[in-house]
């Protein structure tokens, strides 16, 4: 058990920042990101204890995180339906990390990215932020490399168009 713990501890150290960022860019809240991120690793550790031969632990954790984010939005939609006063997911008290982003031009990029469809978000985050090569991104998206390149191209195009649109609106 202590060996498994050591191994998972390494995986945790390698992935924690990436998984946190991945979730944060989707939910725009430090508190929710922390909750979902710790839940991701808890589920990951439970699974790893039973089967330490997971082929790609990092991809496995991303999959858990994606499912948790999806569940979170599903829950939120249900809550809004029941109680309309439960407002936006945007954290009213952003943390330091958020503040630094909010105070810069990056805010716009981040906000637009959060509004893109899930596949576009993922492909951008994995390739440009996490530096994953196309082949790995393709595997995680369960697509061919060519299809992944096309998705990446479209995602970037969409992102740029949305930013441009918002800039025009603001002026």
């Amino acid at each position: 058990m202590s060996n498994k713990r050591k191994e998972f501890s390494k995986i945790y150290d390698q992935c924690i920042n990436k998984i946190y960022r991945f979730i944060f860019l989707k939910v725009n809240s430090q508190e929710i990101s922390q909750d979902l991120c710790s839940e991701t690793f808890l589920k990951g550790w439970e699974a790893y204890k039973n089967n330490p031969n997971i082929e790609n632990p990092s991809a496995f954790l991303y999959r858990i995180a994606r499912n948790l984010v999806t569940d979170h939005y599903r829950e939120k939609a249900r809550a809004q339906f029941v109680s309309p006063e439960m407002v936006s997911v945007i954290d009213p008290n952003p943390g330091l990390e958020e503040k630094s982003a909010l105070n810069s031009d990056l805010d716009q990029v981040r906000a637009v990215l959060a509004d893109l469809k899930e596949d576009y978000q993922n492909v951008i985050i994995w390739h440009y932020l996490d530096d994953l090569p196309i082949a790995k991104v393709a595997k995680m998206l369960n697509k061919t490399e060519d299809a992944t390149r096309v998705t990446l191209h479209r995602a970037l195009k969409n992102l740029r168009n949305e930013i441009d649109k918002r800039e025009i609106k603001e002026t």
Partner: protein
Amino acid sequence: MKEKELISQLQQLRQIEPSKDWVISTKNQVLGESPKFTLFPYLKPAFAGLVSVFVLFGLFSFAQSSVPGDFLYTFKKITEKGQAIFVSEQEKPQTSLELANKRLEELTKIAEANQVKKLTPAINEFQASLSEAARSLSRMEATSSDPVANKKLVEEVKKLDKNKQLVEEALGVVFGGQEFDELQEVSEKLEVKLVIDDLETRTLNEEQAEILNRMKELVEEGKYSEALGLLGELNQ
């Protein structure tokens, strides 16, 4: 916005990171580890080693007052065997006699405390030490010529004999048998040799010279106790 510029801005989003405290506490929470605070963690192995040495030292020291049948007696024996390694061949008879005396003291302690259960192992230990003493003494007798060492050996055997008699009286048992007789024989041989050597350095009158000659004859015949018996006549 150009694509390159956009990619560069995207890459700047890498600065989004969770706080370090949160990362550590979450890791402990996930893996079920509580944070451990230790003073001088790098000293831990050395500290563990030091504690072990102290514990062992304490254990072996404490074991020295144990008697046969006690749990700690094994440690006492280990200590004695360890010490015996460093004893030279010439000193071995002396050491083994001292050990036999020690066993006798243990036996006395047990008899005084009326610890019936421990009596048998204690008697066995004493017999074994007696045999060992007799063996080492018979090995050295031919080679030893150091009068000081021989005198000490004789004294040790006398002490053993005296203590043995006391214990035998107290318990109503006779120990040693053949081993002790052998031991005494060697001791008498050494003693008579010491006496003869001493007498030869002195100026003797005719009568005394005669006694000395008779002593020498008895020694040649192997009658050591009889030769020692003549000492009384010599002093008259």
